[in-house]
């Protein structure tokens, strides 16, 4: 309830800021709002684009939020997602060539799309987990703060991607991989022809199912139940017999696994290949989603939709006001929501964790 009120205050602040920006650019706020509405929720195309943009944000928010339950701030979702996306696309295109080449060792298996999906997902998950595990292990073994190490890991991921693409994964003279061969159907291919032209695809359902699964894991498994305890400090854990180091690493592993699903929608549902910078920024926006969503599954989805609307709206408004205005609005939303939830906590008194969860 408190989170909801805080989010509403945040939205009001964003609305005020939006008006100020509109006036600063000499546009009528009402007119801009009409354009914003038409570009997002006013047309089916707009709705589809918002869905397409919300899909990675839901997953990114979930990844950040899961680690946050253990008190870990995973700023490395960006790098984990990018590397997994490249890995998944490279595996897919490699399997595609195996399927087309009769004499290839894996020819028989690669002919079947479901078998290829298994390999693709396994690659993505492995890379995402591995890349997230490093900061986790550095933290529990050497006490390296995860905010700093995940940021550094992002930079290393950037360089590794450049290396991998330049050394053979990319088509000659480009920064994109070969075609992936398997696709996540778009909505219009499923018979929802109103979405024609928009990139909305079934990755949305992958994201929503993941949200559901994670919600169950958080409530019904030992690991999930013990994470908030880990966050509340080592003394509480020792008292309750929680293996704190193992739980911290597990939290990072799950977070990385979720992060590895982020690029699926863009790579397999929209582009059909991975390209340097595809879907960049989702990991960072995911931090905002996690904060706005306040750890609640529905909250995460709602926050992702709001931020996706801002992103898509920025594109719709571009030309009248710069697209970057939406970055500033996002900043306003984050800070005001953080302020409002803190202020509400102080005035209303804090709710016992069991009730809040």
């Amino acid at each position: 309830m408190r989170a909801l009120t805080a989010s509403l205050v945040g939205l009001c602040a964003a609305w005020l800021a939006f008006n100020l920006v509109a006036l600063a650019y000499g546009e009528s706020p009402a007119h801009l709002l009409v354009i914003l509405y038409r570009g997002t929720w006013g047309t089916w195309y707009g709705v589809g684009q918002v869905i397409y943009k919300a899909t990675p944000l839901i997953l990114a928010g979930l990844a950040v939020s899961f680690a946050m339950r253990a008190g870990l701030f995973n700023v490395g979702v960006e790098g984990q997602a990018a590397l997994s996306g490249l890995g998944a696309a490279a595996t897919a295109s490699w399997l595609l060539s195996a399927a087309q080449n009769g004499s290839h060792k894996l020819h028989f298996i690669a002919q079947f799309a479901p078998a290829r999906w298994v390999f693709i997902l396994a690659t993505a998950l492995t890379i995402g987990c591995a890349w997230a595990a490093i900061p986790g292990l550095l933290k529990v073994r050497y006490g390296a703060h995860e905010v700093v190490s995940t940021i550094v890991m992002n930079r290393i991921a950037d360089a590794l991607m450049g290396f991998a693409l330049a050394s053979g994964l990319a088509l000659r003279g480009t920064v994109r991989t070969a075609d992936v061969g398997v696709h996540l159907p778009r909505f219009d291919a499923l018979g929802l022809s109103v979405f024609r032209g928009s990139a909305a695809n079934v990755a949305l359902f992958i994201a929503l199912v993941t949200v559901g699964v994670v919600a169950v894991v958080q409530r019904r498994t030992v690991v999930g139940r013990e994470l908030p305890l880990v966050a509340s400090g080592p003394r509480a854990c020792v008292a309750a017999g929680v293996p704190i180091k193992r739980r911290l690493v597990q939290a990072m592993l799950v977070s990385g696994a979720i992060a590895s699903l982020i690029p699926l929608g863009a790579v397999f549902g929209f582009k059909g290949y991975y390209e340097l910078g595809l879907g960049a920024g989702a990991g960072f926006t995911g931090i905002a989603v996690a904060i706005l969503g306040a750890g609640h599954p529905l909250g995460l989805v709602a926050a992702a939709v709001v931020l996706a609307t801002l992103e898509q709206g920025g594109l719709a408004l571009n030309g009248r006001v710069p697209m970057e205005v939406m970055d500033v609005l996002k900043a306003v939303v984050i800070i005001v929501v953080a302020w409002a939830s803190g202020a509400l906590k102080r005035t209303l008194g804090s709710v016992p964790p069991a009730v809040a969860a």
Partner: protein
Amino acid sequence: MSVSITLTHVIAMAAPYGCAALGGVWSERSGVVNIALEGMLLVSAFASIAGQAATGSAWLGLAAGIGAAGAMGLMHAWLVERAGVADLLSGLGLNLFAMGMTRIGLSALYGSSSNSPSVAGFGLAIEPTVVLGIVAVVVTQWVLRKTVFGLHVRACGEAPNAARSCGVNVTRTRILAVTMGGAIVGIGGAALAFDLRQFQSGMTAGRGFVALALVVVSGWRPGRVAILALVFALLDWLQIAAQEKLGVFGFIVQTLPYVATLVGLAAVRPGRRSFAPKGLGQREDQTDPKLC
């Protein structure tokens, strides 16, 4: 290329890292986590170029850069200390804000989405920004170690409750320290911008985040920050030099500075003398740092 030119170049490259990390030391020594270093660097780089472009004076540009980053510091400190926003969130928001505002500024002032027009810079044999940066290291060391204000800053960082019980105004001390830190980050931003003689969108390219790591690796000490910034800049310079020769493997060399940072992070064990301020991220009225 002669050795002295290389050395000057490396020092110029070290200035943004060093100044940003020094600002981080000010902020974190007072107990406020500051991940907004990146945003501060970006804003000050923009302000210093815009300042010179508008007034024609590089000195005024430098002042604008320092002022802009100082204002960001003030905003961060105010949000954290007075409005009760978690410091990581405030920093995150300010980074986004800086990214958006500098782009808006570029398009509003120069009608471009990528870069500003070139400015003359200082045109002196020795970059005043670098000199100022070195002065800032010495002054920071002296203020933190030898002055009453520095003692207050460190007390607020180690034990805010204890500091308050001794009559130190924790909120005010932290706001001053973070603002001061912001101003020093501003020197770095100006150094970065004047080195290229123009502002480019997103030109800080993660330097503020590297600075964050340097703060930790240095053990929150100004002298070591300066040395580490030089080491990092040297690795960075080697990386750029090597990239031209190594082709594809240049990308691997590119990771060198970052891998070194990770190793440094892991090597700084808690204990001995290199520990984090104990009250980092702590409010006056709470005992545990909390994320949200």
